[in-house]
């Protein structure tokens, strides 16, 4: 070994953790919203994330669209795809959880194959969000990771404001907390489902774009993203949105820190052990309710 870990490393590492946490949160928020409001596990959510990344690839790398514009378009277009998916695939399946597992898994297979056929299996790369690094008091901080954090933060805040301040946002929160109670206020459950899938898909798309830019993208990246989303839900608490945010940050930062101190292998293992601990002792997570 021999290399000492300096302040720069630690700070970079924490920033990295926030960045990774941010992308996990973008995936996890959608997943937990859909779970709370529709009581289903959207197994194709990881593929939606992947689709978001590939849409940006298509627009930006293949057709020269500005990266940020491409990300924005991808968010909207993927949200629309989510709407279509909800209307065509999910809504007709009324209720049985297993049917949803089957249908969404089937969809995920189809999406994966579709992307492989359209783009080939190879790993690709998106251009950087902002190349180079800031020099903050002598510490070099990656600009693109900073941007990723900002984007994730803005979107999370936007979601929060939507849920707390708008009529439909409150209706969504209400639907998640008591479905019958929400029905009795005249809230249309189909509109709620449509909105939540659209929002969740849009957020996941941005997460995918960020991941694709900072790292890389391939048609099979969805599976891991999905698992991170689930992990975050377990840590942060089932049914809780602040829990999802906290869970994502904990996951991201702990992975990063443990990687730094104990090597990249431990960086993945220790959070997993954390998850096991949660699974055994506190299945409701940190903030879980329902």
């Amino acid at each position: 070994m021999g290399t000492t870990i300096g302040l720069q490393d630690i700070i970079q590492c924490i920033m990295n953790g926030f960045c990774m946490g941010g992308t996990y949160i973008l995936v996890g928020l959608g997943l937990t919203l859909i779970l709370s409001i529709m009581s289903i596990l959207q197994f194709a959510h990881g593929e939606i994330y992947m689709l978001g990344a590939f849409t940006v690839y298509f627009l930006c790398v293949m057709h020269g669209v500005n990266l940020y514009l491409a990300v924005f378009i991808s968010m909207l277009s993927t949200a629309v795809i989510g709407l279509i998916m909800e209307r065509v695939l999910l809504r007709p399946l009324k209720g049985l959880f297993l049917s949803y597992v089957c249908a969404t898994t089937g969809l995920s297979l189809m999406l994966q194959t579709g992307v492989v056929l359209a783009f080939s299996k190879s790993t690709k790369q998106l251009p950087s969000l902002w190349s180079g690094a800031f020099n903050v008091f002598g510490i070099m901080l990656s600009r693109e990771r900073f941007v990723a954090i900002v984007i994730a933060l803005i979107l999370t805040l936007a979601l929060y404001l939507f849920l707390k301040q708008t009529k439909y946002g409150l209706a969504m929160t209400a639907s998640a907390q008591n479905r019958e109670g929400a029905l009795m206020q005249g809230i249309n459950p189909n509109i709620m489902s449509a909105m939540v899938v659209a929002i969740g898909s849009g957020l996941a798309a941005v997460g995918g774009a960020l991941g694709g830019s900072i790292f890389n993208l391939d048609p099979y990246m969805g599976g891991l993203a999905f698992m991170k989303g689930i992990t975050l839900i377990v840590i942060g608490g089932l049914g809780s949105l602040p829990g999802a945010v906290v869970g994502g940050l904990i996951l991201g930062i702990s992975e990063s820190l443990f990687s730094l101190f104990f090597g990249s292998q431990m960086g993945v293992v220790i959070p997993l052990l954390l998850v096991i601990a949660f699974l055994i002792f506190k299945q409701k997570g940190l903030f879980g309710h329902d």
Partner: protein
Amino acid sequence: MTRGQLVKNLIALAVLVLVFLLPVMVRNDYWIHVFIIIALMMLSTASMRAIFRTGEISLGTSGFMLLGAYSSALLTKDLGLSFWISMPLGGLFTAAVAAAIGYPFFRVKGIYFAICTLLTGFVLLYLAGYMNNLTGGWQGLVFDFSPNPITIPGIGTLTFDTDVHYYYLAVIIVAIGLFVLYRMERSRIGLVWGSIKEADNLAQSVGINIMAQKIFVFILACFFTGIAGGVYAFYVHAISPSTTPGNIFSFFTSVYAILYMVVGGESSFFGPIIGTALFMLIPELSRGLQMYRPLLYGALLILIIFFMPQGLIGLREYFPQWYRKLVKRGEGPGTEATR
């Protein structure tokens, strides 16, 4: 016995004969391999269905197979135990782990239980990958020991030097497992499970300890899943953890187990068996389609869910009609068509 029973028994007999003569009819090593894997998955899927009968969904199949595989492999590799001992022990180890996590897990509501089991499978996979000293890490274990030869009185000796022998091993063990699960389901205990699923308040009020029952089923199911994993390990002689869909220990296996159960029909014991057989054969039969395979597979899943939500087993409702049509045709013209 009644006509219906006679027919059922004949079908069962025919299936048994078919299964035992399969290696003779299909002299292709590759297909034998496929059948072995299908058989093992049938046991895992049937186990998962047993859990489902109590109203819970387990997505941890892959993890429990992994536990069974690694524990029995390591017991033989490091402690020199014979397969015939280490395989059941592997199952017991898996059952023990299931017992440990069962109690805390069942405290949460159904869908969250499913998530917890899904994550468990994932976690176990990664643990196997990182515990280098014990499990050989991501490279996995490679071993060249086989089960000790066993003599079945009157039939012959299995020396396990060809795939066919493993086929019979798998089939016999799977048959035993399925038989046990089937008998349990048909017995009073099976009724209890069903009652828990349907109306657990009611079940509780007549004195059934729901938690105990659910954990019991969970342990039993995981035992068989572990056994399946153990047999798998000794058959392929090389096990490694990987997250790709091709690897049996990836979480995809757990999801596929559910899919096989749903498309086969979760209302019947034989649903998952048929579902597993069919849906594992489809990728094999469609090899020619290469890259389009998952697309076809996914589309098929969606179609079945939409048009046959009760699963393929629903087709058997049509059997009496077809039977009657056949019989009537033989009786000559002027016969009324039956519906």
